[in-house]
């Protein structure tokens, strides 16, 4: 479902780093012949890869945990935002009411304020009924030449589990 929205948004390149909630999406990206799936070892490389792809006329998305956004703050601000290079980020929004691990909690607390400080447009997607926002967010990103971030809660990524 998420992948279908990405493809309808014209995204053909996905760079990912796994999270427990992202297993299904990453598996689909890996097996879909219409998607070039790139395996990251660190999330800010994904910002760079999507930026470089845009220079060559291709639309990319970064798929990672929200902690990857904290790590990628410099790349998002210094490459994507500052050069006006668009990409879409889909991040598992760990550390909210729907999470059950203490070590995740700081991510839910600080991620949105950090995105605010960076000036990056972002929305939280609570469940599968809101996934069409992926196409809207991608359109917004490429229209404005800006990185746009979607923070996906457990139910949006894992259904009712």
């Amino acid at each position: 479902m998420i992948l279908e929205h990405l493809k309808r948004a014209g995204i053909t390149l996905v760079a990912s780093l796994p999270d427990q909630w992202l297993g299904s999406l990453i598996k689909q990206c890996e097996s879909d012949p219409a998607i070039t799936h790139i395996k990251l070892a660190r999330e800010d490389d994904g910002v760079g890869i999507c930026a470089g792809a845009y220079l060559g006329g291709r639309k990319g998305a970064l798929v990672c945990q929200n902690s990857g956004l904290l790590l990628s703050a410099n790349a998002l601000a210094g490459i994507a935002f500052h050069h006006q290079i668009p990409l879409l980020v889909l991040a598992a929004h760990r550390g909210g009411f729907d999470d059950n691990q203490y070590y995740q909690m700081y991510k839910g607390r600080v991620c949105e304020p950090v995105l605010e400080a960076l000036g990056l447009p972002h929305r939280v997607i609570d469940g599968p009924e809101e996934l069409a926002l992926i196409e809207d967010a991608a359109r917004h990103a490429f229209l404005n030449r800006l990185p746009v971030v979607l923070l996906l809660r457990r139910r949006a990524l894992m259904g009712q589990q």
Partner: protein
Amino acid sequence: MKRVALAKLVKERLKADDLVVCGLGATEAAFKAAGPVGPTYFASDPMGLWPSIALGLALARPDRRVTLLAGDGDLLMNLQVLATIAAAPVANFRIVVFHNGAYSSTGGQQLAGGERLSFAAVAKGVGFEWAFEAADEEVTRRLDELFARPGPALLDVQLEDEPCPSVPPGPWSQVEERTAFMRALLALDGAA
């Protein structure tokens, strides 16, 4: 070997329809002194991201050869990107490392790892089929091999540790530079 000499040797092997991503600081100064050939994206701040940007460009344009002129400090900052590159479908992507072991633009501070640091060894270790170190008279032959074979491939060139005069800012912002590069690439496509 001096860095401008390496930049000239790379330039001799580039074609007008090749794309280049050039690292910042001393690498930028060297390649600007040699003079770019085709569309060239000159890096700016932040460091560490230019290998991944060059990879993205190579993924988007499999019809063109993409060469990254990598500063050693820039490459060391996100060294794990070599594992991502090794696993990516980029036969069109080649890396030349300008390796003088120092952060030249900021006063010549030595890189961690110092003289033992080998980017070729790291590249081999993460899965590059072709990665070599070269110095002095070996460089010409290894560059010929690099451009004759499919990528991803990496040549780690040992350079003298020369001082680098700071590069004054150019007249264009990074947004304007980015746009100019994309338009140059489109013009190239139209001419093809």
